[in-house]
């Protein structure tokens, strides 16, 4: 069978709808009699809630209802743990999750306290201003180290400290390794990340039909199935009576995979009032009430021999989880594991403490903690290289895991509770591609010296990383040939722009010999597919894609068998092409797939035992562990010595995500990730003051990179197929974002002679670093 669309730059099936403004997003859902919700949220980061008076709000014209914690009855209980911590021996984990509405105590600015249901959002907001909340502000826990100091205020008064978790993973004997090192490089690193800032804010619409006992919910979630299951449990409904639909979603990036208070409150209110209820978050709420990533503080040490080969790494770090920790240990474990990178690290000691603070909850944002680990390792290697007189390229090349060493077991546990094992990779090939593409040698030997003689501050950086992708547990897909000859494909993951309507269609189209446009993909609707987990951790193409493939293979088999019967030919002689089945060599003797589908579902007669009706199959795919993608990013920058503005002159990516289904879409994912990475490295900063107030709470202060800030990116591919799934694919969703901080630091330091130990930079911070450097050399 020839591959028709696999590997091709196929245009997307979903675009016409999106381009004409006819795609349904959650806020587009309009239902008769719909009421609107506005929240009253805490203005303090840490305070005792002494009283709430909603009388004036309730009396406001157009207000249907006002709810506080006391009105919630059984619903007022802590939210669920979303991700079980992996079974790492000796780990400590203190689970604290949010209640739907705060009572007695508020723990972060933006925590919901009350809500108004009214005829319009405008009226609801008017009434929200009439709610009188009396609070006794308490000292806020903001700084990670101060949070752990003796006598620090407690975010959770029932714990003895602000420790949310503690984990240590080791491999080998670092203490012994460091004693024989030719060089020890030790630094303290600060890596702070930011908000996902999807252009679409969150939203929930719920509709309850008392007569049929059915609850329909439209939700901006990346994980409709777990949300459906959680709602059924919390609202005491059978799962089959709850339908959660994630329609078109305007960007996910991680924080839309959660179980927020709003996601249970809105459906509950719909049931209480028997009216459709809508809540759409506004941008001000998004900055404080939608989860984000934030900072870690690392004290790390690298031990190398005289040739720059890694003997071992020790890393001790603090991780900020915010006021609650519903997402387990995912982010810091990703940091811990991803620090090892594509390198041979014989001895490793990594220990982290997760700290509660009076700030917004931290859950994964594109990269999910990997950025921090990559920053630490790449910076340590850069400093070691400088001391040993090696180039950044050479020190990396010397330490790469060789192609022959796969599968490569790193000896510690990953976020999916499986041993961190890299399935395949060719790290040197990616490095070579990037070095060649950016003309590294020519730049460093000729161009850069010449530009420097002109007084220009130009620098080059090159970094590498691995990314664990495609983790389980599983996803499902159902493929159905319809009687009109089109094919329906249903899968449980949600879609936030990754092109699932096209990528999954390509996989199925190739098996069944139909046009990509003839495959109608349904995602994110729990009524269509009720088993699965969601879109996160760069796993859609790997896990859901593989399930689509398996289901399509089974349907292909059914089609060819039925066609073989029809033509009285051998199954091996049937060719599927152009939506038809024909006998090899006789293309004029063909039968349409739709006709076969009708025949496969007879209205009369007998069928053989074991026959399944129609041309349909459902299959589930669960990989034994994640597959490891990798990449190398390189960049040339120029820094303006007066304004400290950084201009990116060239940006090169050499990326390996295994087999590529659609190169156009893969490029798009890489571009988007790099743009986010550039934002995180230089423009975006969640600035909290010491009372826990977010000072950068609008797009005027929190700067998303624009078309003038993101350069043209050049991408090259290496392909090392994954042996862990039938397509050989690896994930790519987060890849672009992961190494950018480390890259920025290296390139800027190369330009200026500074030593960057922190992220994000910014023109002001860079100016400070430049001045300090200038003062040192004066």
């Amino acid at each position, binding site marked *: 069978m020839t591959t028709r669309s696999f590997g091709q*730059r196929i*245009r*997307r099936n*979903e*675009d*016409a*709808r*999106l*381009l*004409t*403004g*006819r*795609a*349904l*997003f959650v*806020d*587009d859902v*309009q239902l008769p009699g719909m009421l609107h919700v506005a929240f009253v949220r805490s203005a303090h980061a840490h305070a005792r809630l002494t009283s709430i008076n909603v009388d004036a709000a309730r009396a406001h014209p157009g207000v249907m209802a006002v709810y506080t914690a006391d009105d919630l009855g059984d619903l007022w209980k802590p939210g669920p743990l979303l991700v079980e911590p992996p079974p790492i021996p000796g780990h400590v984990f203190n689970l604290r999750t949010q209640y739907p509405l705060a009572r007695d105590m508020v723990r972060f600015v933006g925590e919901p306290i009350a809500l108004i249901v009214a005829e*319009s959002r*405008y*009226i609801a907001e*008017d009434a929200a201003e009439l709610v009188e909340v009396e609070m006794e502000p308490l000292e806020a826990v903001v700084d990670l180290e101060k949070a752990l100091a003796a006598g620090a205020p407690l975010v959770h008064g029932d714990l003895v400290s602000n420790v949310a978790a503690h984990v240590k993973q080791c491999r080998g004997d670092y203490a012994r390794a460091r004693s024989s090192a030719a060089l020890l490089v030790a630094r303290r690193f600060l890596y702070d990340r930011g908000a*996902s*800032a*999807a*252009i*679409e*804010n969150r939203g929930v619409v719920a509709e309850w039909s008392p007569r049929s006992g059915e609850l329909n919910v439209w939700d901006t979630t990346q994980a409709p199935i777990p949300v459906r299951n959680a709602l059924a449990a919390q609202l005491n409904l059978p799962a089959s009576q709850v339908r959660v639909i994630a329609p*078109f*979603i*305007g*960007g996910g*990036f991680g924080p839309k995979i959660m179980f927020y208070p709003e996601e249970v409150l809105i459906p509950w209110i719909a049931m209480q009032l028997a009216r459709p209820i809508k809540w759409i978050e*506004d*941008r001000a709420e998004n900055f404080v009430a939608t989860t984000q990533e934030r900072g870690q503080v690392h004290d790390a040490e690298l031990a190398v021999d005289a040739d720059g080969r890694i003997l071992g790494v020790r890393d001790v770090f603090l991780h900020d989880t915010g006021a609650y920790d519903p997402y387990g240990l995912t982010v810091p474990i990703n940091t811990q594991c991803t620090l090892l990178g594509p390198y041979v690290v014989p001895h490793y000691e990594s220990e982290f403490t997760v700290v509660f603070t009076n700030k917004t909850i931290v859950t994964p944002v594109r990269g999910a903690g990997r950025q921090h680990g990559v920053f630490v390792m790449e910076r340590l290697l850069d400093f070691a290289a400088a001391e040993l007189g090696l180039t950044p390229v050479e020190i990396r090349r010397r330490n790469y895991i060789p192609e022959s060493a796969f599968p490569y077991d790193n000896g510690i546990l990953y976020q999916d509770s499986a041993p961190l094992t890299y399935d395949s990779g060719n790290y040197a090939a990616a490095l070579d591609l990037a070095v060649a593409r950016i003309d590294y040698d020519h730049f460093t030997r000729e161009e850069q010296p010449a530009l420097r003689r002109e007084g220009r501050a130009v620098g080059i950086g090159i970094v590498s990383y691995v990314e664990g992708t495609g983790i389980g547990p599983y996803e499902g897909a159902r493929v159905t040939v319809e009687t009109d000859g089109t094919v329906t494909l249903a899968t449980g993951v949600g879609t*936030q*722009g*990754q*092109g699932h309507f096209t990528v999954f269609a390509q996989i199925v189209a190739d098996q069944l010999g139909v046009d990509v446009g003839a495959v109608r993909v349904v995602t994110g609707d729990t009524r269509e597919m009720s088993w699965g987990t969601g879109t996160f951790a760069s796993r859609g193409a790997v896990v859901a894609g593989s399930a689509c493939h398996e289901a399509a293979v089974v349907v292909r088999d059914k089609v060819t068998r039925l066609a073989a019967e029809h033509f009285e030919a051998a199954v091996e002689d049937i060719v599927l092409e152009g939506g038809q089945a024909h006998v090899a060599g006789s293309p004029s003797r063909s039968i349409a797939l739709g006709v076969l589908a009708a025949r496969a579902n007879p209205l009369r007669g007998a069928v053989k035992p074991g026959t399944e009706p129609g041309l349909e199959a459902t299959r589930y795919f669960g990989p034994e562990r994640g597959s490891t993608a990798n990449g190398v990013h390189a960049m040339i920058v120029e820094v303006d010595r007066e304004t400290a503005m950084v201009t990116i002159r060239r940006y090169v990516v050499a990326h390996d995500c295994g087999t590529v289904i659609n190169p*156009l*879409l893969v*490029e*798009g994912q890489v*571009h*988007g*990730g*790099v*743009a*986010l990475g550039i934002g995180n490295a230089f423009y975006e900063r969640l600035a909290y003051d010491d009372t826990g107030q977010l000072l950068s709470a*609008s*797009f*005027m202060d929190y700067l*998303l990179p*624009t*078309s*003038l800030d*993101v350069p*043209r*990116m050049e991408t090259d591919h290496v392909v090392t197929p994954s042996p862990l799934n039938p397509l050989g694919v690896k994930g790519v969703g987060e890849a*672009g974002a992961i190494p950018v901080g480390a890259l920025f630091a290296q390139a800027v330091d190369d330009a200026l002679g500074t030593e960057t130990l922190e992220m994000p930079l910014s023109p002001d911070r860079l100016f400070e670093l430049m001045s300090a450097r200038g003062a040192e050399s004066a």
Partner: protein
Amino acid sequence: MTVSTALDVRINGVTYTDTVDVRLLLSDFIRQSAGLTGTHVGCEHGACGACTVLLDGQAVRSCLMFAVQARGHEVMTVEGLAPDGEHTLHPLQTAFRDAHGLQCGFCTPGILMTMIPFLRDHPMPDEDEIRHALSGNLCRCTGYQHIVDAVRLASQRMAGVNAPAAS
């Protein structure tokens, strides 16, 4: 106390009538009173550009206008670009599809409506000019590169220059 008024707004050549709160934003009138949900709201403070529509042919942020300000003017939204729906796309829309100039699509209508007057006034822009014109629209998915490619492609096609689909 809220003050209401009867209001007619012409959008895409059609008059929409509703009785609205005088402080109703134009973006909310478009989406709720007129039911044209292609115009999206991303920030409500004029920074992201997702709500961009045309007012008498000029790009404006509908979240920064009151609906009553549109009385007597002609508004055009993304729905007005392809009046027959998905089957006859505007060349700009086709170019976006061919160049993969959108991922989640949420910022896309605002970008299209910003580019329409831009291309009208600058029929053959270079990359720099395109990036400047786009700089008031935030996109979190694409990194802008394919959007720039799409605008370039559209400008070539609209000017009658033979341009291939994305290679």
